[in-house]
């Protein structure tokens, strides 16, 4: 009896091993022999929140929506504005813009894109809690005829084009939205190079080439976005061949990908910067000297080396050189613990104080928090690191319950307005973006001026000065401008990083 059972166990173990091994074998053959490969598998770190561009403004969603939808104008990979669904445009006066739409553009449901769809899309967007602020300056969108649209703003709004290139400004099919009713996000319809096929929540989104696309047709037939949260697993997926392009290769894995003969890695400065924000409403952070002291106490080079494995450059101010309006004269704060101690002493905190640093569970941010904790200890500040779940993190920092928190900001439009207004204008306190509750009337004035000025030099001057004041006011410890990257198979062709992080995939294919 016992013997029988033993042999049964052995047999079943053998069976399991065989199955596992044969499964592995299959995978490698399908990954390797791919001369006629027509499916591009892209892995990113999170599931999209919604494929309705008016219901989401998170990067995982945007990265997919960019492939399904088009916008009136687009920013190319150098952040220059280019024609999109609008073939040309004209600024009639300070507050009026006229757009001429491309004719014969088809939605995925076969409808032709007309001015009425554009008007419908912007009306719908203006009623969305998530993204209405992006076109907050727009007063009205009117249809002149089928192919001409007039957009009016409340007051002169210089960065309008950059905002119209935001993925939330995508043009939706009026008919598709009305047909789908409340369930639109599971039946998204756009004009983009790929059309939606399916979304297995938490696992993957499958798209298919749209053959009636108005521009260059997509190179691959099927595009799959897989959700692979663990960074290391994205790299392993690349190495085993089950993933073609992995977004955001973890800093520690960059060398592995670069060193692999079958893989390549592209990297570029991005539009993102990281910072440690202070709650300027709360003591001791209401004292600018304390805020500056912490800026001096943080050794950013060490953070870049340890947490990012070198994938970044020290921040010189609130926005980086890829953003229009960047002030190249700023130098940022140097690492100077002596000066930090001096400033603390002047502020009356000679013996330091106790505080907390919040972070979400992003491993890089957790590491940054730990490094900052160690560095603050050197000047006598006893900080406690607390991990807060992402949803609660955004909510509670929005309410101002925090002391210090680690966050980043991506200036997706590539214009200083988007990078500064939401984060530093006192009208944006809390969840809108100004989580440090920074208030400086002079900065407010300059940011308003930059937004409404129609003269480019005047705008640049206002932003340059605003950046200086923000740096001095130090509502946050400026950490680094991040480099972003993507790892991919050697045979992937035509992939380029877009500074906003939402890369265009229509032109990506495989070499033979």
């Amino acid at each position, binding site marked *: 009896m016992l013997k029988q059972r033993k042999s049964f166990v052995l047999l079943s173990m053998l069976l399991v091993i065989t199955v596992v091994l044969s499964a592995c074998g299959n995978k490698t053959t399908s990954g390797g022999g791919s001369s006629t490969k027509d499916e591009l598998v892209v892995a990113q770190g999170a599931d999209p929140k919604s494929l309705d561009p008016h219901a989401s403004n998170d990067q995982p969603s945007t990265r997919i929506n960019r492939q399904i939808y088009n916008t009136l104008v687009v920013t190319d990979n150098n952040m220059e504005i280019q024609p999109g669904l609008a073939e040309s445009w004209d600024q009639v006066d300070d507050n009026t813009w006229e757009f001429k739409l491309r004719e014969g553009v088809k939605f995925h449901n076969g409808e032709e894109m007309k001015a009425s769809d554009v008007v419908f899309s912007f009306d719908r967007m203006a009623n969305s809690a998530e993204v209405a602020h992006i076109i907050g300056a727009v007063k009205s969108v009117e249809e002149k005829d089928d192919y001409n649209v007039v957009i009016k703003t409340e007051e002169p709004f210089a960065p309008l084009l950059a905002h119209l290139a935001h993925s939330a400004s995508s043009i939706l099919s009026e008919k598709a939205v009305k047909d789908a009713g409340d369930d639109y996000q599971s039946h998204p319809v756009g004009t983009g190079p790929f059309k939606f096929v399916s979304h297995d929540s938490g696992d993957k989104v499958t798209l298919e080439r749209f053959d009636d696309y108005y521009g260059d047709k997509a190179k691959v037939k099927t595009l799959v976005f897989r959700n692979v949260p663990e960074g290391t697993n994205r790299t392993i997926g690349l190495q085993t061949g089950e993933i073609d392009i992995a977004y955001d290769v973890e800093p520690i894995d960059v060398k*592995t990908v670069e060193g692999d003969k079958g893989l390549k890695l592209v990297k570029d400065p991005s539009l993102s910067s990281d910072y440690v924000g202070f709650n300027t409403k709360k003591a001791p952070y209401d004292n600018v000297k304390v805020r500056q002291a912490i800026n001096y106490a943080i050794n950013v080079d060490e953070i870049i080396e*340890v947490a990012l494995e070198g994938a970044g450059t020290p921040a010189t101010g609130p926005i980086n050189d890829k953003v229009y309006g960047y002030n190249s004269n700023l130098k940022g704060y140097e690492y100077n613990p002596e000066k930090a101690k001096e400033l603390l002493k002047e502020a009356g905190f000679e013996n330091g104080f106790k505080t907390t640093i919040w972070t979400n569970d992003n491993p890089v941010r957790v590491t940054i*928090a730990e*490094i900052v904790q160690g560095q603050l200890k050197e000047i006598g500040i006893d900080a406690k*690191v607390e991990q807060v779940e992402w949803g609660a993190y955004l909510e509670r920092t929005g309410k101002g319950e925090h002391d210090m928190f680690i966050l980043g900001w991506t200036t997706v439009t590539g214009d200083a307005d988007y990078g500064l207004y939401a984060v530093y204008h006192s009208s944006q306190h809390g969840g809108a973006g100004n989580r440090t509750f920074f208030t400086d009337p002079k900065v407010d004035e300059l940011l308003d001026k930059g937004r409404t000025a129609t003269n480019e030099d005047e705008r640049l001057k206002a932003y340059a000065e605003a950046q200086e004041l923000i740096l001095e006011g130090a509502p946050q410890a400026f950490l680094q401008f991040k480099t972003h990257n993507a790892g991919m198979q050697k045979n992937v062709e035509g992939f380029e990083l877009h500074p906003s992080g939402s890369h265009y995939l229509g032109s990506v294919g495989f070499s033979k």
Partner: protein
Amino acid sequence: MNSDVATKNNASTKTKSKKKRSQWSEVWRRLKQNKMAMAGLVILTILVLLAVFADVIADYDEVAIKQNAAVRLQGPSKDHWLGTDNLGRDIFARMIHGARISLMVGIVAVSIAILIGGTLGAIAGFYGGKVDNIIMRFMDVFLAIPSILLAIAIVGALGQNLFNLMLAIGVSSIPGFARIVRASVLTVKDQEFVEAARAIGATDTRIIIKHIIPNALAPVIVQGTLGVAGAILSTAGLSFIGLGVPKPRPEWGAMLSDGRQFLRNASHITTFPGLAIVITILALNLLGDGLRDALDPRLKQ
């Protein structure tokens, strides 16, 4: 302990206390013969010593949590016996300071569980009937919730610190101890010496504390030893998912979790804390098994 109590308070005679003392030395004698159990005991003793003298071996502020980017991710060497982690901290120093947390949480959590669970179990077993029913059904409800889930809920609700961690793990293992104590109280309570005590007019409390508990202790000791192992694992588990001891205080589970990213480039960061957990649990289990054999009444003759 128990023999002392017996000497002072038991009115019967010196001979009984002598007999009791010899009973425990008998257990010790049997335990000594079990090589595996002794190995477990030796390992545990070393661990406890390392934990107690952690500050002497490596200073907490200057070594265990001191970051040094220049020596990060180094393998084992003369300066850093077990290598350094991603922030350049010495892994050996962190491990012995981590042993403090693990052992302390293990022991305190199990003490909480034995104290509360044992009392409830003893009351339930001794009185039986309705009291028994109410207490044990309540325990059944607790048992229906997976203990790690319960611990997560408690830490999540009360906040993340060392005390709450010990409380969470302790509370979540109460029902197990309640059951064991109840079962062994049931086997003891009808024996003649209990009846004798009752006959001479001893109160219930006195009977439970002086007569029943000492005689029902054996399975609790075994379960307690194994329970410490379970508690250490739970601590590591909770720390792994970020609900353990706040950073930068080192804890084995948290060290595993932090090193996970570097598994393919610097595997020593995870290997050593992982080994520490395995060895500790193994030692505790060996000792627990040995104690069970040594205390087993069937071997007493």
